[in-house]
């Protein structure tokens, strides 16, 4: 019975992929997104049943090569992540029905529809994969389909660069996964995801390579740089899927490995926690400085992935220390935050897509006053912002609260050095939370409130219904998941000491209502509507408002050591001795630290090496015979044992 649900979902997604490739019409695209909606409902039933009953379905294994089976598997962990997919896909599908129509040509619209379905299917299959080979196959399909989606507007130079960057990074990720899985295979002799009863030193290589491999895909600092490039290039619905689901699939892969290890070591946890905290902090600090709405959201995704990995790091540390209930709490926090982030980040990306569509720009400085021109989108955008800023009673608050609880109870750890480390991590975590709140005050305030800062923003019109409904689905889920967080967690089998947010929400609502009524009844004179006092100037102009850069300036000042600036000189001369100046420019810009010190040097080394190698292929027969000659001589020397 359960299996049938999955087969149905897979069939729906496959036909959703194939249909738009066969027939080019608006109805086909609608049908295709309808199919992905149906598949997500089927998956919801499937995942919910597994989580509730704890019964695992049995899938047949099909042997396609000697020793290699095509097999699916689903346990509670995969069910959790299937639930996540099923929660994000409906909103994205409904939204895309209208959004995809804005693409340039008929064939691109269909291609985007087909690829979106394929992308969802691939992510689902990665989570369902029964062994490492299947996992890697669908992992690659997932990467490639998302790459094509990032490149959907391939004519612009910037997008091409973004696509290339993403392609390189995703391949690095896959390469590390290969190393990790092959070393696991060497250790266990099987491609199954079985329990790993090996010592931590034997598992060090798989752990490190899988951590890097999944970390690159998830966007952990310092491998995060592809996110801020790929997201602005991708269509917003795809960004929602990539940020909401694909990053979580990487988290799933890492958890799949980590949870099967019986005896992790302390340094694993410390490493994961450190990288997680740094990602969270750097992500939000870079986001504060950003003025491109989608890039800002991309940095915010880095921050949230950092928070999820913080939870995973805590899980490992507590597990090593033998604190099982705390370990479980941290793990629940990480998983729940992953689920929540999927919801509010897809909501924010969908709203951002609507705003970008309505205004035609991604620059925050050009927005403003959207609450009047696009009221529904603004309201939904606010729900997303409130959730991601972790204000009660939304789901963002519930998820982070679990992690805070785990942190607060860490006094149970006996090792003093570790305690100090955990407290440091806690303070950094708290700082991240505060900065994230500031970030979303800035984003929402500058985007939606006050007066329009540009003509585009003033003339913006509300987007069509499907896009509004599409964004409303995750918004509703955000609030519901927050209010019913305790109930949800206990339904999923996690009986955790946790405040009932439903009660809290009701209380908050009552307090607000009471306050409103009190103020209303005490009101002496009716409300007077007039313009804000403008210090004597006759009218208020948009340039008097807080700008995005102005809002973040104080924080930028505080963190000015992190945003290092760099002075770049470029000069051209008329003569070779460089004495007659022709023209040139000097600029002071932000130092792109990770790019300039971490990514570009190896890239340059590889490039110069490949130039050298390709100069060997010079098209001359003589040289090729010479190489063969040298190879023969080398072979003679080597096999003769003459060295």
């Amino acid at each position, binding site marked *: 019975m359960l299996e049938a649900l999955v087969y149905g979902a897979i069939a729906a997604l496959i036909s959703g992929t194939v249909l738009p490739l066969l027939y080019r019409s608006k109805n086909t695209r609608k049908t295709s997104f309808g199919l992905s909606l149906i598949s997500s409902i089927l998956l919801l039933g499937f995942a919910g049943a597994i989580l509730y009953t704890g019964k695992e379905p049995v899938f047949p294994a099909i042997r396609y090569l000697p020793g290699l089976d095509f097999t699916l598997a689903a346990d509670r962990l995969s069910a959790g992540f299937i639930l996540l997919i099923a929660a994000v896909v409906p909103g994205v599908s409904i939204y895309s029905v209208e959004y995809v129509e804005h693409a340039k040509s008929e064939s691109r619209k269909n291609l985007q529809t087909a690829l979106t379905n394929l992308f969802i299917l691939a992510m689902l299959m990665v989570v369902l994969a029964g062994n490492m080979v299947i996992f890697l196959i669908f992992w690659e399909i997932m990467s490639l389909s998302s790459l094509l989606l990032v490149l959907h507007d391939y004519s612009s130079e910037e997008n091409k660069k973004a696509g290339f960057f993403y392609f390189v990074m995703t391949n690095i990720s896959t390469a590390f996964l290969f190393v990790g899985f092959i070393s696991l295979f060497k250790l266990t002799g099987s491609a199954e995801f079985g329990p790993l009863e090996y010592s931590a030193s034997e598992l060090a290589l798989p752990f490190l390579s899988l951590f890097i491999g999944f970390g690159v895909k998830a966007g952990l600092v310092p491998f995060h740089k592809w996110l801020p490039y790929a997201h602005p290039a991708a269509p917003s619905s795809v960004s929602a899927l990539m940020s909401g689901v694909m990053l979580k699939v990487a988290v799933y892969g890492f958890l799949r490995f980590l949870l099967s290890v019986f005896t992790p070591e302390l340094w694993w946890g410390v490493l994961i926690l450190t990288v997680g905290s740094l990602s969270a902090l750097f992500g939000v600090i870079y986001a504060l400085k950003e003025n491109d709405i989608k890039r800002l959201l991309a940095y915010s995704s880095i921050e949230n992935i950092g928070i999820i990995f913080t939870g995973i790091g805590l899980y490992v540390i507590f597990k090593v220390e033998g604190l099982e209930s705390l370990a479980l709490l941290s793990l629940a926090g990480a998983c729940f935050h992953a689920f929540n982030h999927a919801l509010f980040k897809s909501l924010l990306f969908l709203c951002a897509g609507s705003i970008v569509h309505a205004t035609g720009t991604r620059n925050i400085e050009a927005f403003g006053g959207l609450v009047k021109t696009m009221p529904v989108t603004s309201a939904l955008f606010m729900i997303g912002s409130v959730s991601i800023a972790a204000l009660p009673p939304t789901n963002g608050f519930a998820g982070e609260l679990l992690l805070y609880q785990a942190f607060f109870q860490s006094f149970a750890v006996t090792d003093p050095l570790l305690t100090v480390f955990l407290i440091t991590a806690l303070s950094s975590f708290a700082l991240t939370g505060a900065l994230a709140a500031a970030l979303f005050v800035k984003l929402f305030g500058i985007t939606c409130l006050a007066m329009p800062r540009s003509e585009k923003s003033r003339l913006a019109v509300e987007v069509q219904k499907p896009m509004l409904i599409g964004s409303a689905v995750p918004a509703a889920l955000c609030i519901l998941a927050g209010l019913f967080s305790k109930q949800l967690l206990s339904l999923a089998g996690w009986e955790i000491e946790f405040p009932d947010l439903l009660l809290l929400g009701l209380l908050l609502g009552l307090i607000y209502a009471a306050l409103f009524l009190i103020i209303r009844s005490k009101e002496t004179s009716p409300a007077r509507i007039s313009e804000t006092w403008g210090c004597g100037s006759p009218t208020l102009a948009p340039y008097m408002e807080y700008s995005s850069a102005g809002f973040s300036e104080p924080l930028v000042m505080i963190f000015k050591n992190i945003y290092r600036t760099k002075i770049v000189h470029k000069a051209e001369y008329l003569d070779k001795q460089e004495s007659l100046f022709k023209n040139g420019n000097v600029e002071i810009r932000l130092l792109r630290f990770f790019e300039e010190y971490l990514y570009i040097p190896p890239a340059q080394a590889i490039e110069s090496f490949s130039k050298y190698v390709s100069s060997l292929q010079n098209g001359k027969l*003589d040289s090729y015979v010479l190489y*063969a000659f040298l190879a*023969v001589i080398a072979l003679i020397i080597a096999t003769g044992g*003459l060295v």
Partner: protein
Amino acid sequence: MIDPLFLEGIIKVLFVFVLISAGLIISTRNLSSVLTTYTIQSFLLSAVSFLLYMIDGKGQLLLLAGLTLASKVILIPYFISRIEEKIKIGRDLHFAYLEPTPSLLLSIGLILLSYTFLSRVFEGLPLSRLFFFGAVIGLSLTLMGMLVMFSRKKVITKALGYLSMENGVLMFGLFVTELPFIIEVLIIIDLIILVMLTTILAVGMDSSIEEYRQKFRKLQIWTGVESL
């Protein structure tokens, strides 16, 4: 019946001549001299094969000697000399990577390398001195042929280098591995095809199909019809 030791002495003398011919192929600039040297080298090989037959009495060796004589001493040099006549290039003056003198020095190095290599490889095998030397000469001849292929510019010289390389293989086969006769035959057929291809390519490598035909006709290779 002639004394085998005497025959072996002659074979050893022939080895020296084979090496000298290989050196000449590396360094000679005149194309017709290179061809003559190759012909002589093949003849020497054929003679070695015949002398081995005199010692061993295996019919296969006699066949091989005859085949080598027919193909490598008569047929292939005849083809190549025809090409040389037609293309009217008498000399191959240019060298790539190595000039003649360094090439000769390098080939001495190659002989030493083959010697040490094979003495390691055949250590402990019941192989007479004569056969060991034959193997060494064969291997060095192969390597020297390869040297010719990359150090000379003209296609005909390259082809001759390849042919001399194959002579090395034959030599090695004669003394060490005893290649089955059928393989020797196949190699020789290959060589004849190679020479034909070389003819075609040497004449028309740089031209389009139409020009190629023209050139072919003008040079009267294989057509037998006088040019217009």
